[in-house]
């Protein structure tokens, strides 16, 4: 990766269209996309990245568009947390709104975008559990070609994605399901904290399925398939209830699905326990909401 000389000017492209953005990227080999800058600039300050050129995405109107249809929600990559936390987007995806409201501080929520969160692909990225639980699809534009992939295909590891260097995330398509959804995040501080563990839990009333995913407890968001299967069978979908034993079992299986690490933020054992607790609580809330 190229690096700028100390004190040298950084070249800045200010495209207004998605094609313009990809063209600017293609024309400048070592350029990088810059959205809200809330991950980007932290890395610059730490000396971890020094691109000689940036392609700014703020003026690309198409990236800021969000659309709610009867079957899906299409969220432009430039949509901010502040946008996700209120209005029609929040009505359509309340758990994403809840996740958005946990991100950083008001300043960060005004600047940070969902596209940046997805492209950063941090295990602690707070939009990722819900997007993963709902099998969201990501539209990506590269030089000459557009493609679409599942969020689980895009996020491949700790801060690693399947994006090619010049590819631009345009939007994220999230299916609309009939049923409640919850997001819970665990951190040592009551606000502005990186998740030690997080959970998205969704009930799909039509398909009679439970969906869930957990953050910060593995290199990529964890989908607890066995827990989902067992609980989907255990729920009385007619009365929309489940036994307390089944709910606790869901928590246990969820914890088993995770592969957390011990680091300076917490221990693997605590993260596992936290998932067990928030998975069960999220499920209880979903059942309560719908009852």
């Amino acid at each position: 990766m190229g690096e700028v000389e100390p004190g040298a000017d950084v070249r800045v492209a200010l495209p207004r269209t998605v094609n313009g953005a990809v063209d600017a990227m293609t024309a400048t080999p070592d350029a990088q996309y810059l959205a809200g800058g809330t991950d980007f600039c932290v890395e610059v300050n730490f000396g971890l990245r020094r691109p000689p050129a940036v392609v700014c995405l703020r003026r690309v109107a198409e990236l800021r568009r969000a659309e709610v249809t009867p079957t899906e929600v299409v969220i432009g990559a430039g949509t901010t947390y502040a946008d996700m936390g209120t209005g029609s987007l929040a009505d359509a995806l309340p758990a994403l709104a809840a996740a958005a409201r946990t991100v950083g501080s008001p300043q960060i929520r005004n600047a940070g975008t969902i596209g940046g969160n997805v492209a950063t692909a941090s295990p602690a990225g707070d939009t990722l559990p819900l997007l993963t639980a709902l099998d969201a699809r990501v539209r990506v534009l590269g030089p000459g070609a557009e493609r679409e992939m599942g969020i689980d295909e895009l996020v491949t590891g700790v801060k690693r994605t399947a994006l090619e260097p010049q590819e631009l995330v345009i939007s994220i398509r999230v299916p609309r399901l009939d049923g409640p959804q919850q997001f819970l995040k665990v951190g040592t501080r009551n606000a502005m904290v990186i998740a030690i563990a997080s959970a998205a839990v969704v009930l799909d009333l039509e398909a009679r399925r439970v969906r869930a995913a957990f953050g910060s407890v593995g290199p990529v968001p964890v989908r607890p398939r066995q827990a989902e299967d067992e609980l989907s069978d255990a729920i009385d979908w007619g009365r929309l209830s489940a036994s307390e034993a089944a709910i606790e079992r869901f928590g246990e299986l969820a914890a088993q699905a995770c592969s957390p690490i011990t680091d300076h933020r917490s221990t693997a054992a605590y993260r596992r326990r936290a998932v067990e607790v928030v998975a069960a609580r999220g499920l209880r809330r979903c059942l309560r909401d719908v009852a």
Partner: protein
Amino acid sequence: MSRSSAPVATRPAARTRPRAGIGADAARPDGVPKVRGEFAFSSDLWMDGMLWGRTLRSPHVSARIVAVDPSPALAIPGVRAVVTAADVPGRPTYGLEEPDQPVFASEVVRYHGEPIAAVAADHPETARAGVRAIEVVYEPLEPVVDAERALRAPPLHPDGNLFRHLVIRHGDLDATGDVVVEGTYEVGMQDQAFMGPESGLAVPADDGGVDLYVATQWLHVDRDQIAASLGLPAERVRLHLAGVGGAFGGREDVSLQIHLCLLALGTGRPVKMVYSRDESFFGHVHRHPAKMWFRHHATRGGDLVKVEARIVLDGGAYLSSSNAVISNAACFAPGPYKVPNALIDAYAVRTNNPPCGAMRGFGSVQVCYGHEAQMDKLAAALGMDPVELRLHNALERFDRLVTGQVLTGTVPVRECIRAAMAHPLPPAPSLLDPPMARPGGAGLSADHADVRRGVGIAVSLKNVGYSEGFDDYATARVRLEAGVGGEPVATVVAATAEVGQGFVTIAQQIVREELGVADVLLAPAGTTDIGSAGSSSASRQTWMSGGAIQLACVAIRRQLIARAAASWGCSHASVEWDAGEAVHEGTGERRGLAALLADGAVEAEHEHHHRPTVPLDADGQGDAHLSVMVAAHRAVVDVDPGLGLVKVVQVTTGQDVGHALNPTQVTGQIEGGIAQGVGLAVMEEIVLDEGRVKNPSFTDYLVPTTLDMPAVAATFVEEPEPDAPYGAKGVGEPPVISSGPAVLAAIRDATGLALTRAPVRPEDIALAGQST
């Protein structure tokens, strides 16, 4: 210049109070500029043609330095100088108590982040590149990061691994009680976490000296250490206080001062340095982590019989103020209680952890976690109410500390406890509470049913000022003259560091009170024009610099009275001072400041020494302390035991302030101190892995946000301190001492867990009883 160590009279009963004098909620002179972002902090310093400095720091915790080669850095265009240990012309080391810390490490590295070299370059990025280019060959060594192990390990430094061993033997050491409780406690490493990172600007001067603009807590002691290492006479090193963005003890030690001056003198150009946030975590000392054992003896009736304690503070790689911190920890280990017999065995130890030194509360904080947990344990063993037990054993005026010192000042322990308890409790947690108000906050991780309420109390004792025979003093000069329009204007010259505590406000209030002048200017603080003010620490500046200003004003008043007496042809004795005017006692004639100043300005300087203290003897006995401050805190917490998360709901306090000279500022100190105390109780800790700092950022070193801050209700307990100017004690430190222990007590109450370690981590609660 006058000089006194005599007690200073409390406030004269002024008949007409000047506006914004003593006791008023005077506004800070720097308040509006700070709120508007117009106040210049040290990081805003700028000079045309200046260079940017940056420090190379050791990536190793412990290593032998085989070679340092600056030449690749010097080959980079724009790099103007590299300085290493070889370039220090004077004393190669510095230190607050003893100079045991190298300006740059040359042979051995003793902690993660120790400075090796500094670079000056045209651009901050070039300086960064220069730092990266310096070639250092290290031979890593096995670090010693456990204090107990260090006591037995080969010396990590020529001065050895034991900084100080202090034993307090008091009363009958064989005494025992009917009821005995024992416990071990641990406190993690807290950081001062000031918002304004270390920064300064050094400007070389024509006389071969240097002017340094810097954010610090004690200008003169910085100057003396810098001058020694530069090999310059002190008067050629001129320090000027730049805007300080918080300190809390973390700016008492030298950080970038000597490096900056070396670079400026080496290049002949002004050099600026600003630490980045992560570097700041390596650039200053922290609060000592502590391991403590206590055994309390009491009669069945609840009288404390004896306190035994063993306290080990990890001082890290260099001494800093460890000797004074361990003294406080030992002296105040029993807390604010009558303890007839005590055996306290206290150690401050050198390890390869980051150096630890001064931080708000200074040794009292750590032991408070121990003695207050013990008091609760004892109350449980006695079947007594914990508040009752504390009231029963509370120190009173003329009681003795375990050092044998009789407390001749005010000690309103009971009053503080009662005041803290008198505030109404908050409403019980409810289904209707906003979900964000529950433990877990914005993460919405808890429902109402998951929450347990707990209440705890803790009480603390700490000294004001420096102890053990240190001849502490502060200097101030006041000048009173007619301003441009003839109106009187006073100017205060003092080297007192305003670090956010509000000294600038108090200084103005004192002058207004004493001289009846509305307009009070503060000259910039520096070393060129006035003697030392001492440190802005130990809750001492209102007493010390405030006292110096007060006495300078008294001297000015005497001169004004002399002028009035001369003009009336009467004796000084027949002139009185009243409401900013001289009054002839016989005729009732009055003379205002404007008239009195017609003959020219009046000026007085005063060096204020407090009553002498003495060193502790071989048994830890002696009148080592000037005065003590008491605080009591009651904390109410909501805990989510499933996740181990805590919301501190309310902290109430009764604080022994002597006399609240500015109630708003006292409240500010109380609220800020409680935030810092709550932080240590539930989140603030420098996480170390074999001496390596794992969380040097505000992403991972968590300090409380507004959602973590409890409601605070405070009562000032005002019993004027006989020795102190206006009867005012210090107010800065007590709020941080027992607030955290009260929070821990409340979490224990909510969960039934022992919780012997601060900060409490979520896993300490959620996984209690489970090996992790």
